């Protein structure tokens, strides 16, 4: 499999506080790459830096063999790097439909808007029933699905999911992970997944990185990572 995204020695932070201390990772085309680690490890910051909403101060980001380290966020979204952010960041005063339409804001995505709509409605039938409802009035689980659906509307090639199962009931967590599998197998997306749910992530992932204090501490196949007592005890707390 060829490389979709390569992050090399990335550095970034907020003001004078450095958060990322040169982590490097690779996401292979058509794979699910899982990024695990405790709270405050810098996982969200890494995704935000890849997307450009946090400006990198060092290192490089190579996407489809192009250097996009300092490309502005909207250009990266146009190229197919899309984030379903932690904390959802939905447009709570707009309807479900309008949120999805905003997802198709990139010019390229706009051309496929009808196909994308029927695709996300078949992935998340509940959203079709709620299409005219105001996003702020959806349940937590429905909002999480809308966040993923909105990201899918942007015609991603690489979709980054930041804690998609956070705060969801076990049944919904299962649904979210089934959807992630479908996104890989049926739609052919490349997925970079940040999760707290270690067991489910190890089950879904093709490759796993362990992040701690802004650095990559370990990497490997999910069986290998799951089998290592040291890694589980030191970084995953299980």
């Amino acid at each position: 499999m060829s490389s979709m995204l390569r992050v090399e020695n990335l550095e970034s932070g907020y003001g004078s506080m450095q958060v990322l201390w040169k982590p490097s990772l690779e996401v292979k085309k058509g794979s699910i790459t899982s990024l695990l680690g405790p709270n405050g490890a810098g996982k969200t910051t890494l995704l935000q830096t890849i997307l450009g909403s946090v400006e990198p101060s060092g290192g490089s980001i190579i996407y489809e063999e192009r250097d996009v380290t300092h490309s502005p966020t909207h250009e990266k979204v146009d190229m197919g790097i899309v984030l379903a952010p932690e904390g959802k960041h939905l447009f709570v005063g707009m309807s479900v439909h309008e949120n999805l339409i905003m997802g198709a804001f990139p010019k390229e995505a706009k051309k496929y808007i009808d196909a994308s709509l029927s695709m996300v409605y078949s992935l998340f039938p509940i959203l079709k029933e709620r299409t005219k409802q105001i996003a702020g009035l959806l349940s937590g689980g429905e909002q999480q699905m809308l966040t993923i659906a909105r990201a899918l509307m942007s015609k991603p090639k690489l979709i980054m999911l930041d804690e998609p199962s956070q705060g969801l009931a076990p049944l919904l967590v299962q649904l979210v992970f089934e959807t992630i599998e479908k996104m890989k197998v049926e739609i052919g997306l490349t997925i970079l997944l940040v999760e707290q749910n270690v067991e489910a992530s190890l089950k879904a992932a093709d490759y796993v990185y362990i992040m701690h204090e802004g650095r990559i501490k370990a990497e490997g196949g999910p069986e290998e990572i799951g089998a290592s007592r040291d890694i589980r005890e030191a970084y995953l707390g299980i």
Partner: protein
Amino acid sequence: MILQLLAGNLIHGLLLGGVYGLATMGLSLIFGVMNVVNVGHGAFIMVGAFITLTLFSVLGISPVLAIPVALLMGMALGFFFFYTVMRRLIKAPELASLLATFAIGILLEEVVKLIFGADFRGYNWGLGKIVLPITVIPLSKIYAFIGSIVIALFLYFWFSKTRLGTAVRAVVEDSEGARVCGVNVGWIYALSFAIGIGLTVMSGVMLTMFIPVGINPYMGGVYTLKAFVIAVLGGLSSPYGAFFAGLIFGLIENGAYVLFAQIPGVAPFPLTVSLAFWMLFFLLLIKPTGLLGKK
């Protein structure tokens, strides 16, 4: 007799209210998108008035044509001040943007004074008037009212139906959410500031129809204050709320004038000026999110 007077004044109040509404939409838009309170707001209204005056009395161009000119010049000013000043202040503490817009207001006033002097000026469009049994309405006021409504409706459709307008609403709701959707948020800030200023300068054109000899470099201050009250009435970050609040404000202001005039020994005009602040005081006491505001 008093009822007749009241009804007549309410008609004038409604017409002026439409212009107040338009004059506040820009303030609300800029606040909604950038969280910046434009303290120099009134100075941009003044610029619109001087554009109208100059076009009419120097070049003989109709105030109707001053509207698009005002929009273009307002947007140009908006882009200029955004890229030179405001862009640096989006993430700065609020005091910085308050001071900066205050300074921009003074700068505009002094530049206009340098060019035109500090005298009160005016012009006479000479359109004629409609004579009703209860009052006489100059046609120009009706034009200003219709113009304000047309512009407000146009803005409404731009916001709700176009791709870019929806993107502006998205930035108002959640700028980070808009960013991950691929919206160039920096450009939306610039565009919204320019449109906000453009609307404000256009409202200055409309306002000249209500102040026959009131055009002066320092005329803006009172409209800044009124716009603040109207913006709070309308729920602060909603341009439509601002427009309706403007109508209500115009009605109350003009209606109250007639009633105040009935109180013996009271000068009605200063009392009317203070009314805005009584309204603000009681509104904040009763419903701090604004009359039409949500939550």
